[in-house]
């Protein structure tokens, strides 16, 4: 079991309202990602759920029980920190065994659990090593091992992959997703990386300035963002926003169009611009096009597309994929 309900949870730091009051329901077994720009309150929210910070108001229910005042040790949640936070004076074995030792399990049971976890995470050969003798990826796995042995109600991940290099990050992302498939335990994962959010989540919670902007599945957020903030945050490269005549024509104050929903042509189209920059990824080409009267627009096209800087190019938005926003940035449906 591992359902978590937040009711009007708020947090102030020295008179500054970091989280003004927020409601959220996380069902048992869900993989929920909190995503948002730095300073949006996503890590604070995770720490409130963990009990590492005290709430200023509201209630936190875990499996239906009010845990708002319960110390972190008794919430039966496991946390994986960005810095790994391994115990440097203990071996890998000691690190993974620590939560079980604290729970007062007997030696044989601890040994069995630690060896099982080490086998799952490919750490069996490193059990006697100290954390300083491990690579970043191995340290991260030890941190995960330490989290899984106690069979928590839910796992909390605080930007766990941000200290790893790009290739390792992709591998660990897959490992964590597989772990979720295997354990089916609730996971809450905090990241500022929308790619991690899109690829791992069952449900994404987009946060901005301590408020929830939108909650939904990755594709819901991509297809139907509730407002301009979510539209701009989810999707890479970022959505283009256009104001002025083109927006008014469609009855909106701003329109949004994703780079992949623009058709490129050398002959004709709705907007005429000049190529400012082209980025070749091999599988895709990103073009930054300066459109007079509209501004810079990013367009994405599959495969290789050669266009010289300064060359004239035409863009046509796919009308069915144009997002409309009113003056306050809310989506017009």
């Amino acid at each position, binding site marked *: 079991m591992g359902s978590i309900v937040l009711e009007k949870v708020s947090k102030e730091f020295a008179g500054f309202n970091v989280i003004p009051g927020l409601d959220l329901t996380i069902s048992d077994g869900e993989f929920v990602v909190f995503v948002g720009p730095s300073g949006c309150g996503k890590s604070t929210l995770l720490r409130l759920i*963990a*009990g*590492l910070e005290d709430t200023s108001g509201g209630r936190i229910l875990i499996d239906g029980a009010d845990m708002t005042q319960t*110390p*972190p*040790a*008794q919430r039966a*949640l*496991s*946390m994986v*920190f*960005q*810095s790994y*936070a*391994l*115990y*440097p*004076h203990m071996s890998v074995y000691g690190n993974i065994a*620590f*939560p079980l030792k*604290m*729970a007062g399990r007997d030696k044989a049971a601890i040994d069995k659990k630690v060896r099982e976890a080490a086998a799952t995470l490919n750490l069996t050969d490193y059990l006697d090593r100290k954390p300083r003798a491990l690579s970043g990826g191995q340290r991260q796995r030890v941190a995960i091992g*330490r989290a899984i042995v*106690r069979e928590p109600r839910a796992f909390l991940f605080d930007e766990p992959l941000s200290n790893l290099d790009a290739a390792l990050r992709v591998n660990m992302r897959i490992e964590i997703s597989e772990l979720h498939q295997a354990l089916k335990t609730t996971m809450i994962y905090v990241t500022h990386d929308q790619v991690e959010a899109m690829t791992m989540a069952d449900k994404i919670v987009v946060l901005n300035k301590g408020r929830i902007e939108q909650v939904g599945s990755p594709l819901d957020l991509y297809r139907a963002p509730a407002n301009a903030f979510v539209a701009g945050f989810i999707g890479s490269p970022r959505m283009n926003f256009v104001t002025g005549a083109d927006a008014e024509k469609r009855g909106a104050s701003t329109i949004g169009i994703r780079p992949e929903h623009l058709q490129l042509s050398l002959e004709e189209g709705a907007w005429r611009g000049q190529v400012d920059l082209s980025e070749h990824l091999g599988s895709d080409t990103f073009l930054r096009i300066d459109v007079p009267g509209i501004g810079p627009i990013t367009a994405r096209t599959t495969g290789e597309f050669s266009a010289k800087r300064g060359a004239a190019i035409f863009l046509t938005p796919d009308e069915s994929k144009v997002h409309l926003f009113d003056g306050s940035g809310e989506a017009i449906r």
Partner: protein
Amino acid sequence: MRASSKGHRTLITVIGWTVGLVIFFPILWTVLTSFKTEDEAIASPPAFLFFHWTLENYVEVQSRSDYLKHVFNSVTVAFGSTLIAILVAVPAAWAMAFAPTKRTKDILMWMLSTKMMPPVGALIPIYLLFRDWGLLDTLSGLVGVLMLINLPIVVWMLYTYFKEIPGDILEAARMDGASLGKEIVYVLAPMAVPGIASTLLLNIILAWNEAFWTLNLTAANAAPLTAFIASYSSPEGLFWAKLSAASTLAIAPILLLGWFSQRQLVRGLTFGAVK
């Protein structure tokens, strides 16, 4: 390039040795004087190495006063006061380092400020308290007062060491189900061992050498080695050779302790500035 850096290193070495020898010279001179006769000790010009080496001062000192009893008192006072101070300071420093409030810095400064007042300013009230409570010339009284005067330094040193320990690791322990006590015993203390060890050593040395309170609050029973040295500067006149022998005996144990724990001490004296 290479020659100049070699010359530079030689210069640094020479300066290092010079400063070291200048600082060490008084100790060396005391040790040499302790092996002279009283006449040679005050001879002018003084003899450096070529004199009649004799152990008579040590024999005299041992017969006149009970060296071992003073050693016992010094050990009790230095170790006792430091250990109690550490036991008090670990939780205090933990709170200041990991659960600071907006007053924490003020409290630390206030604690340090108590070290800025000349101790003699508090002598009369403390003497009267000791008299009324029957603590004069007792080891327990001396342990108490030395513990209190060194406590600010112990708290400050432990605080600076604890600040170096990432808070994440303690939070991880809390998430792993450790109570506050277990968090300190299993996670904080083992990680802070080098810091605690150098704090321990430095404060043993401070307490060992403390002369003001030990001289003023003891007479015969609880007198540590500082009082033992002082007893050789008597109204009948100074006996340099005997005074030197007593000093040598008094500093020998702590000098050996310091010698064997140099590395820890350097860390302690740099107050956590060097990793």
